C-alpha cells in the first residue's frame, strides 16, 4: 500500500492526533467527575434529588451523542452559549459519557451487599463515612472494567468532533481525502490504528488497575 499520503500529511495528522487526545482527556475527566457524582446520588435511594439527577441521565442516554453535540454547538448561541467546536465537543462528549459512567457507578455501588450497608448505618455511620469506608473500597474494583469501557467509548466517540470540524484526527483525515480524492485506505487505516493503540492502552491499564485494587482488597481482608 502507498503510504505517501500519510507521510506527506504527517504533521497535520500529528496535530489532529494531539487534538483527539485533548478532547478525549478533557471529556473523560468531565465524564468521570459528573458520572461518579450522578451515580452516587442515584444509588443513594429515591426521592426528588435522585429524580432530578436521573432525568438528565436518561435524556442523555436516550438520544444520540451527535444530536447532543449539534444542540450544544448550533443551538447554544440562541440561548447565549457560544462555544468553539473543540469546547462543544468536549462538553457534549463529557456529559454523554458521564451519563453512561453514572450507570456503571450505580451498578457497582448496588453490588455491595446490602446487610453491610445496614449494619454500618446501625453503627451510626454517616452516609459520607459509609461511602468512604464501606461502599467505595468495594465498589471501585467492581466498577473499573465497565467504567474503563465507557472511557474507551468516549475516546472513540471523540471522532464525532469531525462532524462539527473540531480539528481532531478523523476530521484531518476526512478533509485530506476530500481535498485530494486519494489516499483513502492508508489514511483511514492510519487513523484507525491510532485509535486502536489508545483503546488498547486504556483497556490494558484498566485490567492492571482492577487486578491491583482487587489484590489490595483481598490482602487487607486476609
Amino acid at each position, binding site marked *: 500500500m502507498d503510504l505517501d499520503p500519510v507521510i506527506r500529511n504527517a504533521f497535520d495528522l500529528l496535530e489532529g492526533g494531539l487534538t483527539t487526545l485533548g478532547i478525549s482527556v478533557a471529556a473523560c475527566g468531565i465524564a468521570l467527575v459528573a458520572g461518579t457524582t450522578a451515580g452516587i446520588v442515584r444509588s443513594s435511594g429515591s426521592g426528588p434529588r435522585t429524580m432530578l439527577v436521573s432525568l438528565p441521565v436518561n435524556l442523555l442516554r436516550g*438520544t444520540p451523542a451527535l444530536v447532543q453535540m449539534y444542540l450544544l454547538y448550533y443551538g447554544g448561541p440562541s440561548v447565549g452559549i457560544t462555544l468553539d467546536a473543540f469546547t462543544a465537543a468536549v462538553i457534549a462528549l463529557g456529559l454523554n459519557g458521564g451519563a453512561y459512567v453514572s450507570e456503571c457507578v450505580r451498578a457497582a455501588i448496588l453490588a455491595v451487599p446490602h446487610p453491610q450497608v445496614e449494619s454500618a448505618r446501625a453503627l451510626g455511620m454517616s452516609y459520607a463515612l459509609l461511602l468512604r469506608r464501606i461502599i467505595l473500597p468495594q465498589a471501585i474494583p467492581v466498577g473499573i472494567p465497565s467504567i474503563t469501557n465507557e472511557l474507551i467509548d468516549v475516546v*472513540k466517540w471523540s471522532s464525532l468532533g469531525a*462532524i462539527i470540524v473540531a480539528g481532531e484526527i478523523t476530521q484531518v483525515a476526512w478533509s485530506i481525502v476530500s481535498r485530494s480524492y486519494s489516499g483513502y485506505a492508508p489514511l483511514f487505516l492510519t487513523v484507525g490504528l491510532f485509535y486502536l493503540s489508545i483503546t488498547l492502552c486504556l483497556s490494558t491499564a484498566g485490567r492492571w488497575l482492577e487486578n491491583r485494587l482487587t489484590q489490595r482488597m483481598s490482602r487487607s481482608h486476609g
Partner: protein
Amino acid sequence: MGSWDFGPVLTRVDQLALAALVSLWIAAAGLASALAVGGAVALLANSRVRIGRLVARVYVEVVRGTPLLIQIFALFYVPASLGIQVPNIVSGITALAIYFGAYTSEVIRGGLASVPQGQIEAGRALGMSGMLVVKRVVLPQALANVIPPLTGQAASLIKVTSLLSAIAVNELTLRGAFVMVQTRRPLETWTVIAIVYLIMNTALLIGARVVEARLRRHLHRPGKGR
C-alpha cells in the same frame, strides 16, 4: 432572538417523521445483519479450530477498538476509490453490521453460556437429539437471556444511525440539518430531533419488555417460587 418558537420546525414535522422511519428501517436492517455477523463470529469464537478462535478474537478487538465513524468512512470511501460503486445506505448498513456484529457476538456467546451445561447433558442422557436439545432446552432460555443486552444494542443502533448523516444518508439527523438551515432555528430543531430519538428508544424499551415477559412466561422453575 432568544425566544423559543417551535412553529417553523413543527410545520416540517412530516419530513422529520418520514426521516425517522428511514432511521428505524436502517436500525432494523443493521440489527438483523449484525445478528447474522455476530452469530457467525460467535460460532467461530466457540469453534474447536484454534485459528478460527484467533480470527474471531482479533475481529472483535479491532472493531471494538476503533470508532464507528472511521469504519463508516472507510467502507464508504475506500470501495469508491477502487471503482466499486456502493450506494451510501448499503455501505452504511454494512458498517453498522460489522461494528455491532462484534458486540452481538459477545452477547450471543454470553446467552449460550448462560444455559447450564448439566441441562444439555441431561437432555442428551434422556435420549434427545442434539437439535432437539438446542430447540427445547438451549434456545428458550438463551433467547430470554439475550433480550436485555440485545435491547441495549438495538437502542445504540437507533442512536448511531445518526452517524450515517456524515455520508449523506437521508435519515433523521441529516434531515434535521436541512430543517435547521431552512428554519434558522437550531435550538428548536435539535430539541425536536432529540425528542423523536427519545420516542423511538422508549418505544423500543417498552416493546422489549413485553417480548421478554412473554419469553420468560414458561420459564418459571417449579420449586423456585415467585
